[in-house]
């Protein structure tokens, strides 16, 4: 119980600090933070299928695009209320999860990666070429934002609060699932499929469930992304973007929620910090990622955890020696 209160307090401090920081920042930093929150939701979703269940998914950009475009079209030409349009994201997620999940049951490894890349490309090409519906390369404009009942959130400032609320909710839900019997079932499938089956776990059902969760998360992230930019076009949803999300997952630490948050933060913020090196910033960023992949293949979070444990042990030993 004490632990829980401490956790809540830590959360409140972090969130307040983030809000204060946001209010004082300029528009550029604000948009980076907004992007970061979207990315966190996305990586948490990707974690279910790629991190825990071990099915390489490179369709994240496609799922994100489906969410963003559905939300965009519903709130512009269809004229729906943004909140109702957001509810439609669950339908999108369920449809994609099943539609992509069933074919992937028979595929593994490279073949699954290729299939998911194919899916993402199909979505991107449709978005580019269905000009009447999606605006083609010109994109969709005047996308409406989620509004609270209290104020019209035309200003980016207030939309940030909504985004933050969704991110916290997404983190809580992900944390709950990862640390429940479902998280264990996902990991069991990743570690040993035959054994999981012999333990009475319905592999097909669980895999599709993980796919569905992942696509619901992605679709919601897509809607929120469309909301804060108020404009989307197909160039944001390339395979390179999907790879970037996988990089976030790998760098932070596969499987754990804090690792996902850390990874999303590093991969979103680091390139921005490196921008002062102008022409070289992307090559610097890629080098850093490569070095990390070689030196800390499990991701940064497990490393941090180990270091903290090691330090604690050292301290305890030292104090014990001091007393003795």
């Amino acid at each position, binding site marked *: 119980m004490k632990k829980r209160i401490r956790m809540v307090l830590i959360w409140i401090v972090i969130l307040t600090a983030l809000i204060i920081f946001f209010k004082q920042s300029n528009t550029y930093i604000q948009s980076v933070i907004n992007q970061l929150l979207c990315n966190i939701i996305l990586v948490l979703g990707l974690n279910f299928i790629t991190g825990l269940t071990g099915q390489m998914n490179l369709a994240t950009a496609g799922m994100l695009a489906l969410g963003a475009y559905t939300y965009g079209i519903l709130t512009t030409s269809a004229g729906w209320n943004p909140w109702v349009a957001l509810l439609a994201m669950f339908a999108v997620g369920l449809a994609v999860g099943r539609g992509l999940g069933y074919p992937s049951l028979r595929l593994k490894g490279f073949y699954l990666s290729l299939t998911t890349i194919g899916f993402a490309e199909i979505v991107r090409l449709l978005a580019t070429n269905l000009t009447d519906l999606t605006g083609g390369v010109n994109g969709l404009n005047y996308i409406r934002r989620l509004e609270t009942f209290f104020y019209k959130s035309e200003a980016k400032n207030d939309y940030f609060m909504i985004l933050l609320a969704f991110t916290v909710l997404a983190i809580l839900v992900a944390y709950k699932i990862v640390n429940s*019997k479902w998280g264990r*079932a996902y*990991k*069991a499938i990743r570690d040993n499929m035959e054994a999981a089956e012999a333990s009475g776990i319905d592999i097909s059902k669980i895999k599709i469930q993980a796919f569905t969760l992942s696509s619901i998360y992605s679709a919601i992230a897509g809607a929120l992304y469309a909301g804060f930019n108020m404009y989307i076009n197909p160039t944001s949803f390339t395979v390179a973007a999907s790879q970037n999300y996988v990089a976030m997952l790998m760098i932070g630490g596969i499987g754990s929620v804090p690792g996902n948050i850390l990874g999303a933060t590093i991969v979103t913020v680091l390139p921005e910090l490196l921008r002062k090196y102008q022409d070289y910033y992307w090559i610097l960023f890629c080098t850093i990622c490569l070095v990390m992949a070689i030196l800390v293949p499990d991701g940064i979070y497990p490393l941090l955890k180990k270091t903290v444990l090691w330090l604690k042990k050292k301290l305890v030993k030292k104090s014990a020696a001091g007393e003795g």
Partner: protein
Amino acid sequence: MSSIILSLQNVTKKFGGLVAVNDLSLQVKEHSIHALIGPNGSGKTTTTNMIEGVFPVTSGKIFYKDIELTNMKTHQIARVGIGRTFQNIKLYDTMTALENVMVGGHQHTQLSLLGTLLKVREAAREEKMLKEKAEAMLEYIGLIDVRNEIVKNLPYGKKKLLELARALMTDPELILLDEPAAGLNPSERAGFVNILERIYNDGKTLFLIEHNMDVVMNISQMITVINFGAKIAEGTPKEIQHNPEVIKAYLGDRYKVVK
């Protein structure tokens, strides 16, 4: 006369032109220790895999009590009440010993994904129930002191035991053991046999495939011997030891002198 828990009726398995199991019929009595032995490549593991639904049978039928398993999927068969361990250890390497065993209990839980998220209290109760049961299982098998170790760091013998604990967690009535004593040293083997006997005494039925004759002859009540996928003998350990065909095919002349 005790009833039959598992029966194979004229089961045949062909891989292309190769007949792996040929017209095999056998019956396992409820609450017994039944061993399936035979030389390498005689079709023992194929038989287990067919019982477990990993391969479909080419012809014939398999029954668990009155339930026909022939066309059921592996996870459904596991839920009927059959647990298994594997010849090559198959554990969830990145998880702790306790979590490994808890996965075995997944099939008995009720809550759906949404339920886990919304019914907080029930979910916590379910989790606690799983954890307590898994701890009891580890205690039973003698692994409670390594419950928080990551499985890939455990020694071979403990991994074997852990697999058994996970199988027990599914509350099976029948446990299929694919070479449980393989790779264990004599003292570990003795410990393992003790545990198997304890499980038997607690009312489970054991069906084991084994190469180690010490283990087979000591604990089984009934032995079926197969060679080239077909049954060549069946009987008590004593009968098997004196069966000339078995000695020729499998045991070797050394076993003639055993009294």
